[in-house]
Structures are given as structure tokens and as C-alpha cells.
């Protein structure tokens, strides 16, 4: 499944990213290059700084130090005048979309409205146009709704378009989060633990779906996981964070045999692993994506 990515220019470049909360250094001088079209995973035990790193790319946290650029344009870089620091919505308009670890749907809105919110940055209608319902506004609304329906079909939620988001099942909520992220037409998709809370069957389906999206929608995917096994099958590149520091970066095989990574997971992180096996749906198997793929198509 792992596709060969030609060494093109990286779509995302992070240099020396550091984030400090008071006395705590959550992320420490992390560099990361993401090749266009790849699936890159950032893994690490809980509290390793993965989500903080993610939030810095998405523009929610301002890094204490470092630079981030996307397709050669700076997202964050330099301080003082002349420095850039984009807001989350500006990052999204550049073509980066994200999901959240602890699902953050607009729970009281309908499924299709959630997707329409995702399209916000691609639409233009303003207050005056909305009041007058000008022709261009109406056309835009029509198109948006049609696109939203087709996106929902793509993730397999076409029938639930009018239900309220909070009434969806857990797995469907995760799918809706993905659909909502896709709605902004991203070229880089950030997925924060997309399989958290899923049983092995659902996990395998989601993993396969991520790969499918990448191929069919020409996406680059950045994935956060603390479960190493989920990631190995589909990732072109795996970076490992531990205590905010990047301790390994390379192909899945390289990372798996890296002694520091093993120490992080089995030494200091032993409790972490045992917790994973503790879950009711244990044991977690390494999902063979190829095997499960036919059944996983939504």
C-alpha cells in the first residue's frame, strides 16, 4: 500500500518549532518536512506534544520559536514587524483542513450544515447579498449545497444529511468531521487521532478510508496517532515525538527498529501500551489494510 513518493518539494516545512506553556516546554525544536502527496504520521505516547504541534500548524497556538511554511508561504515565522502569524481561518483558506481528537462538531446543527460551515472559506456571500438574495449568492448557495451532498455521499453519510450532528453514532461523527474538513477543499489534511475510540473493525475501515481519500482527492495527509500499529501500514513517513522532542523520523520500518523509539514506547511508555491492551475491545491487531479494504469502502 505504501506508495513511492518522488522527492518533490515539501508541501509543509516546519523548522525548529518550539512551544512553551509557562515553564513547560510542550514541543521542543521540532523539524518536519512533509512531501506532497504523502501520508505522514506523527506518533508518540500521550502527552508527547503531538496535538500541540498540530495546533501550531493549524494556527491555534502561536509557536514560541521556529517557522512553519506551507507551499512555500509562511504560516508562522519571524517575530516583530515583518513576521507572519496566520489565524486558524487564514491557515484553512491556504488549504489546510483539520479534524479534532475529541470530536468538535457543531452538535446542534444538521449534518449538512456542518459541511456547509466547512465550505465557508470557499464562499463569498456577505451580509448585504444575503439580505437581497442576489443571483450570485443564490447560485453559490445552490452549488455549495450540491457539493455538500456529494461530499456526504463520499464519506457515506448521504442519508443522514438532515439529522442533527449530535444524534449520529460515534463512527459517523468521525466521518462527518472528515467530510467537514474536506469541504474546505484542502491540499493538506490534518487528522488528529482519527481512530481514537474506535474498535478494530472501525479502525481498519477508517485507515483504509484515509488512504482512499489521499489517492482519490490528491491530498497530503498528516496524521497523529499514539497507536503505532495503526500508522505503520499506511504511512510513507513516520515521525516520533517524545516529551516534545522528535526522536525519530523516517519510514515505518526505520522507525520501528529505532532503539530510542522502542525505549520511549516500551520503557518509559510501557504504561501507555498496557493501557491500550486494557481497553475492552483489546487486543489491538495490526490492521492489514489490503485485506480489509474491500469491506471498508463506505
Amino acid at each position, binding site marked *: 500500500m505504501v506508495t513511492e513518493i518522488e522527492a518533490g518539494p515539501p508541501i509543509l516545512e516546519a523548522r525548529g518549532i518550539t512551544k512553551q506553556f509557562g515553564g513547560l516546554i510542550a514541543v521542543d525544536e521540532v523539524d518536519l518536512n512533509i512531501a506532497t502527496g504523502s501520508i505522514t504520521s506523527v506518533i508518540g505516547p500521550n502527552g508527547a506534544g503531538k496535538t500541540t504541534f498540530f495546533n501550531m500548524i493549524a494556527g491555534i497556538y502561536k509557536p514560541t520559536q521556529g517557522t512553519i511554511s506551507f507551499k512555500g508561504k509562511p504560516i508562522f515565522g519571524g517575530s516583530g514587524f515583518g513576521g507572519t502569524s496566520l489565524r486558524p481561518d487564514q491557515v*484553512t483558506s491556504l488549504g489546510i483542513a483539520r479534524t479534532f481528537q475529541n470530536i468538535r462538531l*457543531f452538535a*446542534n446543527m444538521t449534518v449538512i450544515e456542518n459541511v*456547509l*460551515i466547512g465550505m465557508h472559506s470557499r464562499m463569498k456571500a456577505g*451580509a448585504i447579498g444575503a439580505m437581497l438574495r442576489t443571483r450570485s449568492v443564490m447560485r453559490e448557495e445552490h452549488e455549495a*449545497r*450540491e457539493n455538500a451532498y456529494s461530499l456526504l455521499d463520499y464519506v457515506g453519510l448521504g442519508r443522514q*444529511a438532515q439529522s442533527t450532528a449530535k444524534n449520529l453514532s460515534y463512527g459517523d461523527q468521525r466521518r462527518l468531521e472528515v467530510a467537514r474538513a474536506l469541504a474546505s477543499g484542502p491540499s493538506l489534511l490534518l487528522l488528529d487521532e482519527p481512530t481514537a475510540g474506535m474498535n478494530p473493525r472501525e479502525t481498519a475501515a477508517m485507515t483504509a478510508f484515509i488512504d482512499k481519500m489521499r489517492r482519490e482527492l490528491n491530498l497530503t495527509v498528516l496524521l497523529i496517532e499514539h497507536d503505532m500499529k495503526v500508522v505503520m501500514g499506511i504511512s510513507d513517513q513516520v515521525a516520533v515525538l517524545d516529551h516534545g522532542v522528535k526522536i525519530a523520523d523516517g519510514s515505518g520500518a526505520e522507525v520501528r527498529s529505532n532503539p530510542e523509539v522502542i525505549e520511549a514506547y516500551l520503557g518509559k511508555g510501557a504504561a501507555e501500551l498496557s493501557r491500550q491492551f486494557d481497553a475492552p475491545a483489546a487486543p489491538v491487531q495490526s490492521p492489514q489494510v489490503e485485506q480489509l479494504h474491500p469491506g471498508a469502502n463506505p
Partner: protein
Amino acid sequence: MASSYATRAEKWFADRKQEERKRLLWVLLGAACLAVYPFLDSALGLNQMGQWIPIFVFVILALGLNIVVGYAGLLDLGYVAFFVIGAYGNAFITSPNSWFVQRGWIPEYLQSFWPAMALSWVLAAIFGVILGAPTLRLRGDYLAIVTLGFGEIVPDFYTNASGITNGPQGIGQIAKPPSIPLPGGREIGFSTIDQDNWFWLVLVVGLVSIFMITRLYDSRMGRSWQAIREDEIAAASMGINTVSAKLWAFALGASFSGFAGSIYAGYVRVVYPDQFQFSVSIIILAMVILGGIGNIYGVIVGAIIIGSFDRILATELTRPLNWMGEQLTWEPLSWLGEWLATHNLNSDRFLIFGLALVLIMLLRPGGLFPSSRRAAELSGDDDDDVDDKEDLYDVREENARLAGGNA
């Protein structure tokens, strides 16, 4: 494949159109019922026209505040500030006593009601942006206090800057709307004595406001407000510029307040700062909350309930209440009778508004006529409160749930 998507979207728009037609019919029906009131008023000798027109102005104010509080979820405790700005805006532009007019700064053609109203509208919106731009980043409760401060400073300014505003006496001789000539030499006039015409004018303005606001809410912007209300960080991550969306809500709300203010100024023909106190902001807030925060029709009903108590019922019901007190001479309750006989309901106004706010929050947070969505958000037992749940807890619970569901 693609055509089926198109039909689903087309069908949705067709459904919406039908629903809107139905709603429009109801609104027009309601408006028609209200529109015959002036005839009733004179036929029955009620003499309440002078009260109903301000009540309708307050309905427009409540509709505007509903954009800010109900739609965007921003608690504005200084809404009266924009009402003042609108009312004084009209006075500054049209009154011959105005400091600006006397200096010849206002061109002749602007010195009449309608241009002044448009300008006050814009002026209030500009002030909305000026106040909103630096403060809308603040958390909800801080924003409430900041707007309260602004709502205090603005009337204070108009009281104290007496060189320009003529201080506590205020400015009089504000322009009224020009008469509309009718065929046959008659005309529709808008002097203070033309109460009926004023009533219909305000009714029409109210209808136009409802029309604009419902369309606004059912648009890209309305959706972005809902998203911000539900989860600001998620909304920002989906590409919504939260500050500018809130700013729009704030400025639009302010502009409604501003043009309500300038209509009010044209009706009463004199503005002075004591008309615009903190309690006015709270009365409007009570209207929005009582009726049903976020539900435009609920807000209208709430505004009419509170407005009519404030301006009509408190006075009108006092006499029957006193009469009842006089009849109540039964010994064990004679103290109550004595109290009722002299009690003036006007002194209970704040108690009533306060009770309305507290009881609605405790018993029916969505208001009397809740918008279903807003009620779900305000009740707080929203199971979507994910951000304060630990990840670990989340995973276990969900796994257990899924396992149970599969069994």
C-alpha cells in the same frame, strides 16, 4: 450520479421556498391584525397609541439585539449606547438647534428625516465596529462588562459634553418624516398628532426588519454565527474569521439600534440623555430572553409582552388593583387590602424584569417560544461537552458503548 445530488439540493431549496411563503403569509396576517389596531383604539377610546409606537420601536430594538445575543451569542449589556447614537445622530443632523447645523456643517439636503435616518444607521454601525473591533476577542462575560461600560460612557458623554449636546436638556425640534402626498390633495402626515400614520410607519419598518433578519440568518453569515456560538475554536479551524463574523453581528445589531433610535427621535422630536439609561439595555435584553433567544417571532412576542407591561399595563392595572384592595376589608387580610389599595404597579417594574430574567434562566432557558437549537445549547445538558473530558475516559466509554451496541 451528479444529477441526483442536484435534485436533492434543488428539492431542499424548493422546500425552503414553500416554507418561506407560508411563513410570509403568517407574518402578513399578523401584521394585518395589528394594522387595524388604530381604528380600534379610537373606536374604543383606549388612547394608547402614544404607548404602542414606542413599544414597536422597542420591538425593532429587540430584533437587533437578537442578532447580537441570540444569533452570535454575544451578551451586549450596553445596547442602549447605539440607540443614543442613532437618536442624537438624527438630532444633530436635522434640528435647527444642533451645534453642527448652526455652524452650517450639515448641507441643506441632508437636514430632513430620511437622509438623517440613513446616516444615523451608518453612524451606529461605525460605532459598533469601533467598539467591537478591539473587544470582540474577549471572552463572553468580559465582553458583557465592556459593553456595559460603553453603554454608560456614551449617555454620560451626551450629558456632560453640553457645549455640543446641550447637556441634560437635550436637543429639540428634530425633523419629522416628510408628508407623503396622495392623489386628491390629501397627504399622509407624520406630525406627533398623526399617531395612526406613525403606527403604520413603524409597523412597516418592523416588517422590513423581520424580512431582512430572517434572510440574513438563513445564509452563510447566519451559519457562521451558529458555528461560533457552538464551538469557536472549531469554527475558526473551519475557515471562519471569528472576529469579523462577530463584528458583523455587532455592527448589524448596532445599526438596527441606531435606526430605531433615529425613528424614535423623529417621533418624540426631542432627545435628552435621561431617556437612555442602563435599564433600557436590560429591558431590551429581557424582551429577547423572555420571548425566546434566537427565535425572531418569540422575540417579537417577548418585546410586546414586556413593552406593554412597561408602558401600558403597569399603569392601567393599578386602578383595578387598588379597587380590589379597597374591597378587601376581611379582617385577617385587611393589611393586604390596605397595601393593595395604595400600591402602584409602576414601582414593580424592575422586580418584574428581574424575575423574568431569573425565572426564564432557571425554568425555561430558551424563553417562552424557544428556537429549538438555542434551547438545546442553553440547557447545558448537551452531551457534546467534549473539551473537558479526558481523552482516556472518552476512549473507554466509547469502546464500552460500541461493544455493548454490537452485542
